[in-house]
């Protein structure tokens, strides 16, 4: 995977770790534009549940994605710890700002390539292509999601599921 080569360019990468329903996830720190408190959301009727709202981020209207749905996790209601991580991600060749819902944001830390493993072929309850790699740290396992694959599949937790069309009446 080309992304792997770029992710661990010098054998290690700085990531931002955050919590989704008790699981620890990590995304490349350089992608992160800003972490904001929860903002008023505007639902977009007919959009996939994974990315069903937009927010006003400094005068720009950006989509809000919920990685918890892509990983079939429990989408709890927001709490005091809830944050939105705004990332810049390239979609169809265009840099797009996307907000990611997070139950809690931990810290920026360094992941060593040596401590990571490719996702196991079996025993993973998630779509394998959604997981870029797993990193062990202390007793925890940190999930590094493959954002490109997730956005391309519109966060459908099972491969091949159709996007719900907007229906009238």
């Amino acid at each position: 995977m080309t992304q792997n080569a770029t992710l661990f360019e010098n054998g290690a990468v700085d990531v931002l770790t955050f919590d989704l329903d008790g699981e620890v996830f990590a995304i490349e720190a350089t992608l992160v534009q800003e972490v904001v408190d929860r903002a008023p959301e505007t639902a977009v009727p007919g959009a996939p549940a994974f990315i069903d709202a937009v927010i006003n981020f400094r005068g720009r209207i950006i989509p809000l994605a919920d990685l918890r749905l892509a990983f079939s996790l429990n989408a709890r209601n927001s709490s005091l710890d809830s944050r939105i991580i705004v990332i810049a991600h390239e979609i169809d060749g265009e840099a797009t700002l996307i907000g990611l819902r997070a139950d809690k944001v931990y810290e920026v830390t360094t992941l060593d390539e040596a401590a990571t493993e490719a996702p196991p072929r079996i025993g993973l309850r998630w779509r394998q292509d959604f997981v870029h790699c797993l990193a062990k740290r202390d007793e925890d396992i940190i999930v590094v999601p493959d954002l490109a694959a997730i956005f391309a599949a519109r966060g459908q937790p099972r491969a091949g599921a159709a996007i719900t069309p907007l229906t009238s009446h």
Partner: protein
Amino acid sequence: MSSTDPVEIFRVEAQELLEQIEQGLLDLSHNPGDKELVAAVFRALHTLKGSGAMFGFDALAGFTHHCETAFDRVRKGEVKATPDLVSAVLNAMDHMRALAEGRPCDAAVGDALLVELEHVVAAAGGAQTPAPAAAATPAQPARDPGLTTWRVVFTLAQDVLINGTRPLPMLDELRGLGPCQIRALIDAIPPLEALTPTNCHLGWEVVLTTDQPRSAIEDVFMFVIDDMTLEITEVKDSAADAVVEAAPPVASAAQPVADAEPHPDPAAAAGGDAKAARADASVRVPAQRLDELMDRVGELVIAQSRLKQIAGASQDMNLRSVAEEIEHLASELRDSMMSVRMVPVAQLFSRFRRLIHDLARDTGKEIDLITEGETTELDKTVIERLADPLIHLIRNSADHGLETPEERLAAGKPTKGRIILAARQAGAEVVITVKDDGRGVNRDRVRAKAEENGLLAPGAAIGDAELLQMIFQPGFSTAAKVTNLSGRGVGMDVVKRTIEGLRGSLELSSPAGEGSQVALRIPLTLAIIDGLLVRVGTARYVIPLSAVEECLELTPEQDARSTGRSVLTLRDQLVPFMRLRSMFDTKGPPDAYQKIVVVSTGGDRVGLVVDQILGDHQTVIKPLSVFHSEVGAFSGATILGDGGVALILDVGHMTSEAAQTSPAPLRAAS
């Protein structure tokens, strides 16, 4: 981002030069004797050749050279600017364009064009021998076989450096003509304290021995000749020696100059200033920066309306007055921002002159293009997106509308057909009309075609206006034979869709036998629209005001009756309506008195049931990400005064949705 890639910069420049050349040539075809036009075309060709060579476009420079040579002879009056010559150079221009854009081109095509050019020049110039096509060196008219020594004394205008002129390349060019001695004239250099470093205080005396004619020396100064003093005198051999001997050695003469100049290379220093000086007239800015600026202005307007809310609730008079001032400034800023994005439609219209030229040639018809209202301004993005639809409409007019000269004579019309392209502003819209004086739309053929395609039941009674509307149906084409120009069955429906994509509308009128006219009504800008703000449940949406026909209340009877089929009667017409609540799967109880907003696009009308109408709203349109634009129901979003987001409904999508789900009421309405 501004591009600093010199090749890119050259391409932009080349594009402009080619456009200048094209316009000049087209003007010339109407006005063959106009010396200034010839000179303008020649200058543009010369610049194109020069810049092309400078940026490594050698093929372009070589090719352009031959056209330049041809035009040089026109300029000198040796050759006449015949229509054939103009045509040949126009054809050659397309090749130049390809070369400038770096597209792969066949050298044979270029050679063939040059051969054609050569023939035409020969024909136009009578007995003159044309320049050989293979000659890649500057033209060497054989009038002056011997060597002549010239004494050239020149001083440039003081501010010439600011305009980007560099004396050194001129001297190099002179040196290229033959061996020469160059001496700087330093008399005019003021004392150090009075010296303005960006001015050119130097003059030069050049003694040049060359086989070139005097005009070759003059050509070196072609671009600055208006503002300079230039003296070219022929010198006898002995005199030339005397001059050179009398002059101090070049190196020592140049030395004090360098000391006196704070910048060792004043030309290079002025190079940077050159852009700034030209900026007085106009600035070239990447469109993306304008968009960014527009975004910032939009944000400012939003922040300002929040400030206004806060100030309104406060007793602090100072805060209130500042808030008012900022409101004033913000709205002024927005207006000027909008005007920055406006460009005259002349930019668009000028492209069609070439099109008409080619169309006339290909169809064998005589066509006059008349343009009106070229100073009318439109948003730049809109202009760009209008080009294709207009090309199509003009082609249609030329190909289907206008008759052949013989047919026109028979119909008692002048042989020359006219296509009138006009623009005018009407309120917040610009109306662009494409009108021809041809045969008009053939109703019988439209009907036959519509019946053939199953768009119309055979023999069905249909109004004239509706029959004409058939032309805009997908897959419709009346062209009896498919030509290179139009009639490929993709056409008017694409035009219609593009115009509607710009939130515009189009109208076709065609009194039989009197030609046809298509009027496009385009909103001035894409960035801001007037919208109607409505509420559905807790969410707010914006409906473009231009699509709104009327607002009414959904009576409890209609509400109860409409569980199965949602149709309401509006002045004896059946209008289907859709409940946005169910369409958007809205939670919570509906308001007691629901409202219907009747919207229309083209001929289709549909009612949208909402909970509340909040009022009109100046909407700064923000695009949606790909995730949400693929939903289809929304054309964008906007930020409201309180910082919240409202989605903008795509009315075209709504009406087609209504047409699909309830075809029966739509038929009944027509």
